[in-house]
């Protein structure tokens, strides 16, 4: 039903429509509204016999999810930022064990310095944890991707993270068509676990595996990810039939990527998540001026759709990857995956790190990227809207005295005194 609703609430109601058996959570901004709403929905009896558990840490949230999922219960949790890092050990455990847990990551920066605002360094840090990672470009897709996520997770016996930009999506009010439970039921069958702790048929789960089979277990995790590249398009198609819209949102292509004016695009901007909205506006602007710009979004970052990316980008002349996280000491994260997809094809590519810790990514700044890319003045790796002078003044202070003090606080003091 179409309603004016906050992103978090839409996600909570959609998760509820998926009828999880167990929801466990530990609060952290900007995930809080999701789990608060799920608590209420559970208490109101809107999720059948669902059990909502307030745990004492994210480490326990994921651990409860592991126990619950291994007992054959459909299981959901949500976190962000420091919380995701706090649960890293069980996050890897869940994927290693092949447990189909679904988790929302309300993307937020990682400290230090502590910062509650949006970027994607949290989920990016877990890109190789073995979880499937889907990135939502707007609130409709944030909600819908959860339905797809449960189905995908349970089909493959692999956990899925649905990543949505914190605040920008979680706290935004929009008109959303929250999936009707009856439709969800049509799309999402009852959970039939591959492995289950059951006194009738006792199994041991989680044994030590040595060199004789460890590689094979890990390979199968990789294999399932590759399998997901086949299954996501199938499920997306089915989703579209049931819900009359694509789970991946506007311009969705097979649930793997989104393509916006790519057919003849000379400059292509690539990104994940909500920034795609601004990017498409910039593309429109440039198109009006006769510039052949286009945009590609990556919905499925893990598995990474190498073929689709290659097909979508191989005719471009310039690629600009806008990333809300980066790999210090190297550069781009998404761009290195794109390089892999384009191996052997010589296209000029620039990585722009943008929107760290909630810094707004403006239409103006994005538009300029296209100009700079066209005129060849965009470096291979750069930070959007970096306050170069602020950085230089701190570097100077560092030169002046050994005990220059805490860096972040120096920068704030500097800004405050201007």
């Amino acid at each position, binding site marked *: 039903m179409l309603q004016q609703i906050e992103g978090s609430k839409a996600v909570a109601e959609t998760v509820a429509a998926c009828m999880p058996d167990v929801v466990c959570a530990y609060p952290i901004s900007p995930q809080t509204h999701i789990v608060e709403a799920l608590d209420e929905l559970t208490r109101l009896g809107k999720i059948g016999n669902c059990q909502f558990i307030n745990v004492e840490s994210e480490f326990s949230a994921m651990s409860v999810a592991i126990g619950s999922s291994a007992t054959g219960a459909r299981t959901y949790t949500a976190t962000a930022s420091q919380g995701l890092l706090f649960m890293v050990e069980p996050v890897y455990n869940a994927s290693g064990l092949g447990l189909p847990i679904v988790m929302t990551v309300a993307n937020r920066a990682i400290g230090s310095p502590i910062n509650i605002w949006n970027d994607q360094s949290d989920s990016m840090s877990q890109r190789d944890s073995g979880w499937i990672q889907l990135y939502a470009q707007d609130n409709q897709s944030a909600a819908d991707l959860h339905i797809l996520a449960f189905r995908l997770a349970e089909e493959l016996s692999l956990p899925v993270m649905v990543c949505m930009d914190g605040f920008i999506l979680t706290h935004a009010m929009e008109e959303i068509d929250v999936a009707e439970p009856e439709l969800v039921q049509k799309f999402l069958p009852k959970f039939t676990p591959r492995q289950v*702790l059951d006194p009738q048929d*006792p199994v041991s789960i989680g044994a030590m595996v040595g060199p004789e089979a460890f590689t094979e277990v890990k390979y199968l995790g990789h294999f399932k990810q590759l399998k997901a590249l086949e299954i996501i398009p199938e499920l997306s198609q089915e989703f579209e039939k049931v819900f009359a819209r694509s789970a991946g949102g506007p311009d969705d292509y097979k649930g793997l990527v989104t393509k916006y004016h790519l057919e003849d695009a000379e400059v292509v901007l690539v990104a994940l998540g909500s920034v795609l909205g601004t990017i498409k506006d910039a593309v429109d602007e440039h198109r009006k001026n006769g510039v052949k710009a286009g945009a590609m979004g990556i919905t499925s970052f893990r598995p990474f759709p190498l073929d689709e990316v290659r097909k979508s980008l191989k005719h471009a002349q310039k690629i600009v990857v806008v990333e809300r996280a980066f790999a210090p000491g190297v550069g781009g994260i998404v761009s290195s995956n794109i390089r892999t997809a384009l191996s052997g094809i010589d296209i000029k590519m620039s990585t722009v790190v943008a929107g760290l810790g909630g810094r707004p990514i403006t239409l103006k700044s994005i538009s300029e990227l296209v100009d700079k890319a066209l005129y060849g003045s965009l470096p291979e790796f750069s930070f959007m809207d970096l306050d170069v002078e602020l950085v230089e003044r701190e570097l100077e202070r560092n030169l002046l005295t050994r005990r220059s003090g805490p860096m972040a606080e120096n920068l704030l003091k500097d800004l405050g005194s201007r």
Partner: protein
Amino acid sequence: MSTPLKFYQVGSFAVGNRLLGDDQLSVQSRSDRTNSLTSGHRACQGCGEALGARYVMDAAMAATDGKVIAVNATGCLEVFSTPYPETSWRLPWMHSLFGNAAPVATGVAFALKAQGRSDIRVVAQGGDGGTVDIGFGPLSGMFERNDDVLYVCYDNEAYMNTGVQRSGATPPAARTNTTHAVGANPGASFTQGKNLPKIAMAHGIPYVATASVSDLHDLEAKVTKAMSIRGARYLHVLVPCPLGWGTRSEETIKLARLATESGLFPIYEAEYGTITERKKIRKQVPVDEYLQIQKRFAHLFGPKGNREYLNAIQAIADRNIAEFGLLGDAE
């Protein structure tokens, strides 16, 4: 009138079943015991943890009509029981991580609740390291929420699986590989220690008990009782470790008994934070008698021994005896 039976017939308390009626037989002596942790595992000879776990799980199985799901922390018990493709577990068993046995068990319990399977029960188990140290926060959370889980700690007083390092449950002066018996203060320090049964009691959970592999009847009885209760329950079992303690394999039971009889390991039960039962010391022994047969305390004895430390350990035992009222006739 029949004379009440006392299990003094042999020093070990281990025998005596032949004197009992069918209804009083231990679970372990019954032909229908489940052998939940069956033979063939890779524990060291005389491993107290293997013994304790077998009694605990069989008793839990007997109390629930064979409907137990076990969750295990990383540690010796996990490693020696599942050298896959062999597993010693004849019940549904899961190992996830070192510090998360309690919350994984919580997840199992709530999944069962959601599925309406209140007949199936959950037992989590871990070593002292997994319990008092790395899994402490999650365990406290499980207690605080009063989740329907029996958590069993097998306390061998160090990180044995990683090769005998100090844990928060390692006793003062004990030599481990991270508390060497050299220097001015040899062995583990005389710190506060972390008394988990008391901390569990402070959570006010329905049931807390300590037990020892020197009194297996008592251990079984406590598991049976724990399984008759819903909510968070905690059982702390002393399990000597020949490898880590430097003791003879055949002296595991004797050591466990001396720990109790010296007052160093009080045995009691508590309900909702109040002690309800304590096991009186039958024949008090000085702590020396317990310590001197363990290589981890060897530096306290002999010509270069350390009477000061021995006195300090005796003082701990004396404090326990006073605090728990361990002397006098059985109630």
